[in-house]
């Protein structure tokens, strides 16, 4: 064993989380605080924002300036897009998808949530559970984020009052019972003063839980990866054409579910041919077992015509292969609403097919969770349930079962833009 095998960073794991809150909830301040207190902010960055804060006439060093990178954002004091931030403790590396919380930015929240294992939802202690809290929680639930941490912020402005906190917790639990979020934690904080963010606050002795960072460091992460249903979308076929590897055909890709090992019987879809795995390997050599989200290559015992977009699964457990799909979608296009019967390109795993939306069944009012059946036009930031028909069978699982084989995007062929994100029911 080399010396480096003992290094602690070789045991660190990764947690991706998203933060949702509005301009005034102190979300950027909270992130600034996490970065600052875990020393992910450097002296030159701090000096730069201290200078900007003074020039803007801010009272405190405005930690929000750390996350608002683009010129327009600094000028308007808003966050216009998803920004990714990084920090690490000896236990974990963290990736934050920082998304703005205004109603018009549902699109960004959905984007940030799509890769998150956990969501932080900020509530202003003075305002309690409001419409946008519901909106953020609904999106976390829709995107199947398994763990939500509700941070009741600005506790300093309510005198660190326990009753205020307890009431908010009750109200939130009441509302969240209509959602599908298995784990919810509550932390009373003051991002501005650093109470219960990294260090436990001495201002709230009544709170027995750990500070936010403690939760982030210790929460169990299952990464939403499915380790049951073996799914391997073929991404690229490696054919070296060299003397040493004359007949080599390696199917490369990232495991999207379950596990694959040498000798496993597999079924290739959509053709339905069966074969056996001859080897599973990476650059380092053969691996005993490949699981999600490993990037590997496989060789098979039989010569079968397999190309990008096809899927390797197991004969007794394979995805559905259907042309008619029911899904929840969030509409992303600023230019045009969803048009029925128009052709879009559907991107799903490594596959691409044309499709048409046959019907919008209903829209969701994301503030009240009510179904809207009267107005069925899906415009920017709208969420609704649709039925679409693809030009060829799509190999999918339900999004609830598998986030990677249950998700898709729609591309408008006129503009090449991504116009919708979909979760298959």
């Amino acid at each position: 064993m080399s010396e480096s095998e003992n290094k602690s960073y070789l045991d660190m794991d990764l947690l991706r989380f998203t933060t949702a809150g509005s301009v005034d909830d102190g979300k950027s301040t909270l992130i600034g605080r996490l970065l600052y207190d875990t020393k992910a902010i450097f002296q030159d960055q701090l000096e730069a924002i201290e200078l900007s804060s003074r020039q803007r006439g801010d009272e405190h060093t405005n930690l929000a300036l750390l996350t608002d990178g683009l010129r327009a954002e600094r000028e308007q004091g808003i966050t216009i897009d998803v920004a990714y931030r990084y920090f690490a403790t000896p236990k974990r590396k963290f990736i934050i998808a920082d998304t703005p919380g205004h109603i018009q930015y549902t699109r960004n929240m959905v984007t940030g949530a799509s890769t998150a294992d956990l969501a932080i939802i900020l509530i202003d202690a003075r305002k309690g559970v409001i419409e946008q809290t519901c909106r953020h929680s609904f999106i976390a639930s829709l995107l199947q984020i398994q763990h939500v941490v509700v941070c009741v912020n600005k506790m300093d402005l309510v005198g660190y009052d326990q009753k205020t906190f307890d009431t908010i917790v009750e109200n939130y639990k009441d509302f969240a019972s209509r959602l599908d979020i298995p784990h919810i934690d509550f932390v009373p904080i003051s991002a501005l003063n650093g109470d219960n963010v990294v260090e436990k606050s001495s201002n709230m002795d009544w709170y027995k839980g750990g500070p936010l960072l403690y939760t982030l460091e210790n929460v169990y992460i299952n990464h939403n990866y499915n380790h049951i249903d073996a799914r391997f979308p073929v991404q690229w076929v490696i054919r070296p054409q060299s003397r040493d590897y004359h007949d080599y055909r390696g199917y490369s890709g990232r495991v999207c579910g379950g596990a694959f090992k040498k000798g496993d019987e597999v079924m290739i879809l959509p053709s339905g041919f069966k074969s056996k795995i001859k080897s599973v390997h990476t650059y380092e050599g053969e691996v005993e077992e490949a699981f999600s989200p490993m990037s590997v290559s496989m060789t098979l015992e039989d010569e079968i015509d397999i190309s990008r977009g096809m899927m390797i699964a197991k004969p007794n457990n394979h995805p559905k292969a259907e042309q008619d799909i029911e899904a929840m979608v969030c509409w992303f296009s600023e230019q045009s609403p969803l048009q029925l019967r128009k052709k879009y390109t559907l991107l799903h795993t490594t596959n691409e097919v044309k499709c048409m939306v046959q019907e919008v069944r209903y829209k969701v009012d994301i503030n009240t969770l009510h179904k809207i059946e009267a107005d069925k036009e899906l415009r920017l930031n709208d969420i609704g349930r649709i039925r679409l028909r693809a030009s060829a069978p799509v190999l999918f699982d339900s999004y609830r079962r598998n986030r990677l084989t249950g998700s898709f995007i729609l591309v408008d062929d006129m503009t090449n833009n991504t116009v919708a994100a979909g979760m298959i029911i």
Partner: protein
Amino acid sequence: MSKYHLTHLKHLESEAIYVIREVAAQFQKPALLFSGGKDSIVMTRLAQKAFHPGRIPFPLLHVDTGHNFPETLEYRDNLVREIGATLIVALVQDSIDKGRVVEETGINASRNALQTTTLLDAVEEHQFDAALGGARRDEEKARAKERFFSHRNEFGQWDPKNQRPELWNIFNGHKGFGEHFRVFPLSNWTEMDVWQYIALENLEIPNLYFSHQREVVNRNGALLAACDYISIQPDEEIQKKKVRFRTIGDMTCTGAVESEASSIEDIIQEVAAARLTERGTRADDKRSETAMEDRKKQGYF
């Protein structure tokens, strides 16, 4: 802990390999931007891994300002020979000779900004439709909003307000005629991750990254290597110091830091204790608060 568990480095590696394979699959003619710096060295290793046992199915493209450290070029040529890759070199000097760009003058003259034109010309000449780069989101505030697949219009420019949302692991590389993509597989890596990965993989890196004796001048707090490309001012003094470089760019704008770090593990310790960002040593970022954003809009890396 479940047996189906990956460390953060293996996670990042798997993600980067996935993105690199997507590029090979979705584009007709990609290229990997190679500078000889640590990020592009990591990128090259990941590309090898993505297509093993085949070769990397696209060329490496080096935009050579002519102001490189000689150590960088030597390293580049050895690496290319060793892995059997194709190398294309685009020279900023050619762009100057052709009158495409005008050399900056003055004490802080640098060819950093000129690279953009040379790069875009190379993209056009070779009809590259995707350029893989080693830029990371943690480097700079404008880069924090970059996508993995960053769309560039027919002028090679970046429009921060018109980038495609990226969800799950689905990347939309659809594009119009004359447009191209910059693709950043290391988006989610930090400087620390890169060093840890270099240690994990036991990657060879140019010796500029390790502590060595060098003649430097202190200009506005940055220790620049004394060389023919910078003009030493009368009030400046050449000093001999024990230094290393945290990033490697042009000799004209890459500052050294005083350091005793002589191994990768030393560097990891040093990075962990560092109080300045690595780009804190880069004079090109200090020109204004939004220097990076402005250059990216023009088509910079």
